[in-house]
C-alpha cells in the first residue's frame, strides 16, 4: 500500500522550513510567556501547550501524508457537508468565549469547526476547479463561489469576520490562480470595489470601530488603537539588532496585548530587531515558494489546485497578521502560522503541510494517470 519510493520524493525543503518556523515559533512563545514580576520572571503555560499541539499536528500530518491525496476527491462532498453541520452545531450548542460562539466542547479539547471548514472549502474548491475547463465564466465562477459563501455566512454569524474573510480569500486566490474569463474579470474589477461600501452596513459596531481605529489609531489610544500603537512601539523599539531574547520590555511588562496569539510577531520584532524580522520574513517567503514549486510540479490539476489553496491559506494569514502587527491593516483576529499560539490552528497548519507534501511526493508516481 505504501510505496517506499515515496520517501525519496518528499519535499525536504518544505519539511525543513516548516520545522524551522515551528521552532522559531516555540522559542518566541517561550519569550512571550515570560512575564517580569517583582521577584524575577514567571512563565505561563502556553509554551508547554504549544509543544503538545505541535506533536498532535505532526501526528495528523503523518496520517494525511500516508493517504493518497486523490482519495480526498471522494470524501470532499461528505466532509464539506459535515463541516457545514458542525458550523450549524456550533451556532446552536457552541461554547461562548469572549462573546463569540466559535468552539465545540469535545471534552478533551475545544474544537473550532471554522478550521475544519477551511480545509473542506479548500478540497472541494480544488476538486471543482480541476474539473472545469479553461477560464471561469459566470456560471462556473458562481458554482465555486457558492462553496465558499455558504460556510462564510455561517462563520460571520459566530461572529468571526476574520475567518469568514479568510475562507473567501483562500477560495478567491484559487479562483484567480485558475483564471477568470477576460469579460468576467473586467466586470468584477469594476463591480466588486463598488460593493464594498454596502458591506459597511453588515459589520458589527466593533468591527466598524476597528476599521476606523486603523485609519486613525490616535482617536482611541486606550481601546482598539492601543493594540496598534503598542505593537508598533514594540517592533519599532527593537531597532536593527533587537533587544535580545527575553529582553523585550513591551511584552514582558504586558504592554503588548495578545502577545501569544495575534501579536506574537511583535514580540519577535522587539527582541530580534530588523535583522531577525527580515530573516523570518525570508523564511516565510521561502516557505511559500516551496509550496509554489509543489503547485507547479503537481502531476494533476487537482493536486495543483490543492497546493495553490494551501499557498493562499498561508499567504493570507501571513499578509493579514503581519500587516496588522505592523500597523498597515486593520486589526482582524488572524494568527501568524507557526508563530502564534493556537491549538486548532497549529493542527490545521500541519494538516495543510501534510496535504502539500502529499501532492509533492506523488508527483512521479502517477505519471500515467
Amino acid at each position, binding site marked *: 500500500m505504501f510505496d517506499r519510493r515515496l520517501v525519496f520524493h518528499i519535499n525536504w525543503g518544505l519539511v525543513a522550513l516548516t520545522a524551522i518556523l515551528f521552532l522559531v515559533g516555540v522559542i518566541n512563545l517561550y519569550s512571550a510567556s515570560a512575564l*517580569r*514580576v*517583582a521577584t524575577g520572571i514567571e512563565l505561563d503555560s502556553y509554551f508547554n501547550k504549544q509543544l503538545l499541539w505541535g506533536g498532535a499536528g505532526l501526528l495528523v500530518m503523518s496520517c494525511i501524508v500516508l493517504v493518497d491525496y486523490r482519495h480526498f476527491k471522494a470524501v470532499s462532498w461528505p466532509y464539506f457537508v459535515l463541516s457545514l453541520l458542525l458550523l450549524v452545531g456550533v451556532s446552536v450548542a457552541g461554547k461562548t468565549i469572549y462573546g463569540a460562539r466559535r468552539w465545540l466542547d469535545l471534552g478533551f479539547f475545544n474544537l473550532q469547526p471554522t478550521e475544519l471548514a477551511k480545509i473542506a472549502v479548500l478540497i472541494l474548491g480544488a476538486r471543482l476547479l*480541476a474539473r472545469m475547463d*479553461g*477560464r471561469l465564466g459566470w456560471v462556473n465562477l458562481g458554482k465555486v463561489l457558492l462553496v465558499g459563501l455558504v460556510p462564510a455566512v455561517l462563520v460571520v454569524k459566530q461572529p468571526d469576520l476574520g475567518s469568514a474573510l479568510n475562507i473567501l480569500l483562500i477560495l478567491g*486566490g484559487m479562483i*484567480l*490562480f*485558475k*483564471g*477568470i474569463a477576460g469579460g468576467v474579470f473586467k466586470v468584477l474589477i469594476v463591480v466588486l470595489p463598488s460593493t464594498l461600501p454596502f458591506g459597511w452596513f453588515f459589520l458589527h459596531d466593533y468591527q466598524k470601530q476597528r476599521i476606523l481605529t486603523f485609519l486613525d489609531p490616535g482617536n482611541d489610544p486606550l481601546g482598539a488603537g492601543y493594540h496598534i500603537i*503598542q505593537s*508598533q*512601539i*514594540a*517592533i*519599532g*523599539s*527593537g*531597532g*536593527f539588532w533587537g533587544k535580545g531574547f527575553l529582553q523585550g*520590555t*513591551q511584552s514582558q*511588562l*504586558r*504592554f503588548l496585548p495578545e502577545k501569544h496569539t495575534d501579536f506574537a510577531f511583535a514580540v519577535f*520584532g522587539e527582541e530580534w*530587531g*530588523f535583522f531577525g*524580522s*527580515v530573516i523570518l*520574513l*525570508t523564511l*516565510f*517567503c521561502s516557505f*511559500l*515558494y516551496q509550496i*509554489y514549486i509543489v*503547485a*507547479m*510540479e*503537481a*502531476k*494533476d*490539476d487537482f493536486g*495543483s*489546485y490543492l497546493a*495553490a489553496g494551501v*499557498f493562499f491559506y498561508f*499567504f493570507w494569514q*501571513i*499578509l493579514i497578521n*503581519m*500587516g496588522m502587527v*505592523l*500597523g*498597515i491593516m486593520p486589526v482582524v483576529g488572524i494568527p501568524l502560522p507557526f508563530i502564534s499560539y493556537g491549538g486548532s490552528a497549529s493542527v490545521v497548519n500541519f494538516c495543510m503541510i501534510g496535504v502539500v507534501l502529499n501532492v509533492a511526493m506523488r508527483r512521479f508516481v502517477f505519471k500515467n494517470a
Partner: protein
Amino acid sequence: MGAFDTPERPRIFSGPNLLLICIVLLFCVFGIRLWYLQIYKNDFYTSRAQENRTRQSTMFSPRGIIRDRDGVLLAENTPAYALALVREDCPDIPKTLDQVSRWTGQPRDELEKVFEIGRKRVKHFDEQVIVPNIPFELVALVEAHRLDWPGLTIAVRPKRSYAYGPTLAHVLGYVARANEEELNDDPDLQLGDDVGKQGVEYVLERRLRGAKGLEEFEVDASGRVLSSRIVTQPVKGEDLSLSVSLSLQEVATKALDGRAGSVVALDADTGEILAQVSLPSYDPNEFVVGISHAKWKELLEDPEHPMQNRPVQSAYPPGSVFKLVVGGLALESGSVTPATTVFCSGSYKLGERSFRCWNKGGHGLVDFKKSLRESCDVYYYQLGERLGVNAISDYATRCGFGVRTGVELPHERSGNMPTAEWKLKRFGEKWQRGETLNYSIGQGYTQTTPLQVARFVAALVNGGKLLRPTLLATASPDVIGELPMKASTRKLILDAMVATVEEDRGTARLLRRTGIRIGGKTGTAQVVKLMDKYEKKKTQEIPYKYRDHAWLAGFAEKDGRRYVAVAMVEHGGHGGSDAGPVVAAVFDALFGVQQGN
C-alpha cells in the same frame, strides 16, 4: 496534464505568476515597513517604549524650619492632606470631579478650572492637587471609597504653620501657593507648591526650600511597580535660626498696646535684630491655607495697613531724632564746639518768618549737650542756617539715612534725604531757606525708616561701625561703612543722650534705670503742618490722623552688652511719653529688670 498546460498563455494575474507576485509583494511591502519602523523611526519608538515602562514621581523635601535665637520653633511643617487626582488612573474625570464637588462642597466649575489649569503642568502619572487642605474626616471618606474612584488619591504635603501668628508675621512673612507668574519664572516650582511671599520666607526662599528629588519606577502595563530607583535625592531645606527673640518680640508688641507703629531692637555690636514689631499685624497662617478673596480685600483696604511692614517699609520724618545727625555734622565741620552757645527765646526769625521752638518760653542759653537733652529747636535752626541743605543731606546719607539697609526683608524703603536739586526735580520749585530750618529738626521732606534710625544709633554706640542689620543669628557682623564721626564727637552725642535720660530736664527721663547706662533721643514728627486750630490742644483732642508721630531712639549698655531700641508710634503724640515706655519695656526685658522698679 498540469494545470497550466492549457493552450492559453497564463495571464499576469493568474497561474504561477500570481503566486510569485504574491511572494515578492509580501517580501517587499513588509521589508520596507520593517525598515521604516525599526530603523528609520527607531529612536521615536525606543523613547515611547521607555515612557511606557517608566514613571517618574517627585519626592518632596520639607522646607527648612525657622527658630528664634533661643531655639523656639517659629515656623514648622505640619502634615496636611490634599485631595489629588492622577489623570491616567481616572477613567471618568468629569464624573470624578462631580464626586469631589459633592464631598467637599466646592463648586463643580471651580474644580474644573483648577484641573484645567494644572493639566498642562502635571507630568504623566503624577498627582495633581485638586483640593488642598482637606479635613481628616474627608481623608477617611476618600480612603474608604478608594476602589470606587480610581484616580483619586490623598496627597500628604507638609504645610507651613506659624505658631505665633501675628506676633512675627512681618518678620517671617508667609508661604502660599505659587501663582502663575512664579511658576513661569522658576522652573523648579511645580503646580501646588508653596513659595515664600513675604518676610524671611520670601527673601531666603532659596535656602529654605531645598530641592525636590526624583524617583523613577519601572512599571508593567497595569501600573504595578516592579522596581524603583532614586534619580535625584531630595535635599531638605536649610533650617534657620533667627536673631529675633520671641519673648522680646512679645514684650515689644505688648508695649505698643495695640497702637499702630514699629519697634526695632538691635544688638549694637552685631547688627542682629532682636525684635522687629510692626502693628497692626495679620495672621500668616490664613495665607497658607489659602486666604479668601473677601479677607484679602479687607486686609488691603484696611486704613491701618496691616500688611505694611513698618520698620522697613514705612518712611517718616524723623523729627528731633534727626538732631543727632545735624549735631554730629556741626561738631565735625567745626561750625560749633561743645561750648558754643545759642540763645533760645522760643523762636527764631528768618527774614519775615518766625520759626518756633517747641518750648515757647525758650531755653535760654543752649550749648550742645543741652540742645539734645532738651531738644531745642532754635539751636538747630541756627545750625541748619550755617550748614546748608546739601551738606546735611550728604552727611545724613553717609550716616545711613535715605539708603536701604539691606536687611533680609522684602520691599525695603530707602526714605529720602532731600537736596535743593531733588526738590527742583521733584516739584520744579526752588529750595527755600526756611525749608533748611525744618530739615535740621527732621521735618518736611525728610523721610527715614525706623530701622535706619536704629542702625545709626547702633553705630554711635559700637564705635562707629555702620552694620547691615540682620535677622539671622549665625551671621557674623557685616560692616558696610564707617560713621563719618570722630570718637570724641560720638562720645559727646552719647553723653548728651544719656543726659536726656538721666537729667531732670531731659525729654527721655522715663527710661531711667539704675545700674544701666541708658541714653535716648525723642522725636515728634509732624504729620501735617500744625494747623492753628489744633495748636493749643492736647493730643487726645486732635483727630487721630492729624496727631504727630512719636519717636524714641535709645541705647542701653551694661556689662559689655550694648543694645539699641527704636520705637515709633504712629500718631502717638509725644516721643518721650508715648514711645518712651515701649523702649523702656524692651530694655527691661533685655536686662531682666523687673517691671515696677
